[in-house]
């Protein structure tokens, strides 16, 4: 039996995944990291993107995560995201609607920026998160596995 590591994916309002895996791929601020069991302790900032969990049977489960934290210990991988979504959650989402919402948000941010009354960091993070979410749902629909930013 292959060596496995325990994986927990938790968002602010629920647990999305809790189980074992042979390999996990996680998007972090510095780039995507691939984690196998016995990985050294690591603490990193997540960036919005796709998490892929490979189970013992070789099956790949995909998740979308927003900003958050990744903690790695030799046999534990903990992903704590402010916002996360499983494949099933993406099904009911209307891409065009989401796109429109993002555009509206974009112009709102731009207008606020002109007025000089913008918490730039949080606005930017909201936009990045939204754009990545959209990209992820689109990649799911088109059936490509492992598309990256």
């Amino acid at each position, binding site marked *: 039996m292959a060596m496995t590591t325990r994986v927990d994916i938790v968002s602010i309002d629920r*647990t999305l995944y809790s189980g074992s895996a042979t390999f996990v791929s996680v998007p972090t601020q510095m780039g995507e990291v691939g984690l196998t069991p016995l990985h*050294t302790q690591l*603490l*990193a900032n997540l960036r919005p993107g796709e998490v892929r969990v490979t189970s013992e049977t070789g099956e790949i489960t995909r998740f979308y995560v927003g900003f958050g*934290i990744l*903690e790695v210990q030799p046999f534990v991988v903990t992903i704590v995201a*402010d916002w996360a979504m499983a494949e099933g959650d993406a099904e009911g989402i209307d891409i065009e609607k989401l796109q429109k919402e993002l555009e509206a948000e974009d112009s709102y941010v731009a207008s606020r920026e002109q007025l000089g009354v913008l918490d730039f960091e*949080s606005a930017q993070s909201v936009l990045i998160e939204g754009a990545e979410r959209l990209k992820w749902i689109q990649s799911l629909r088109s059936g490509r596995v492992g598309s990256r930013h």
Partner: protein
Amino acid sequence: MAVAKEIRTKIKSIQNTRKITKAMEMVAASKMRRAQEAMENTRPYAAKMLEVVQHLTNAHPEYRHPFMVERPVKRVGLIVVTTDRGLCGGLNVNLLKMALNEIRDYTEKGVEVEVCAIGAKSRGFFKRFGGNILASVTHLGDRPTYAKVRGVTNAMFKAYDEGQIDRIVLLRNEFVNSMVQRPQSRQLVPLVLERDERLGHRWDYIYEPDSRDVLDAVLRRYVAGLVLQSTVENVACEMAARRIAMKNATDNAGEIIKELKLVYNKARQAAITQEISEIVSGAAAVG
């Protein structure tokens, strides 16, 4: 029959009130179930964050984050979480009483207090009371989200970073069960953590991008997560308290209606008796 009519109107009005309180009780009961679920769902986030933070204190980070360093306390930031609406028994009153006690204790020690009000009741109270409100947010709804509390927590963090406040304390209601909610005070920043003895060996992480940024993100998220959790828990408390309060109100209305009906029937009976005796004595006079 003027008295009887008055009593009838009164009964009618109390019956209407009872209908309303009964409806509110049922609404609160169903909302409570949902709120309780939401509360359970936010627990893993806080639990995982706590795990990470505990590992951090166990590890040997070369960088000591300001959130982990005690400094002399000149000013305290109190985050007071209440509901937006009333009619929920003593829930808010108990918490605000506790807040007042804390403020008095701090003032006696010569420590100034700044308030961060979450919920309309808290904000209204501190406005009237004359507290120094640093930040406030109201109308979080039945499902508070991270985005909604982020503004106030960031304001508190900023005040802490700038040295405006030296400690952040959270006052909130704890959901013990559907009958009991308890006000609770907890120091958030600097973090109060006990070293977990089970994790005997120590290590340091690889930090990506660097320890300063990551630690900062972890600790801020952890504290903001606790604040969010307390608002979610507060919704469950609110619904539970309202359910009990409305149940009592409904019961009381029932009691009053019973008493009034008795009075009404007595008055009616007395009027009839009087009428009969008038007729009888009238007939006797004629006969």
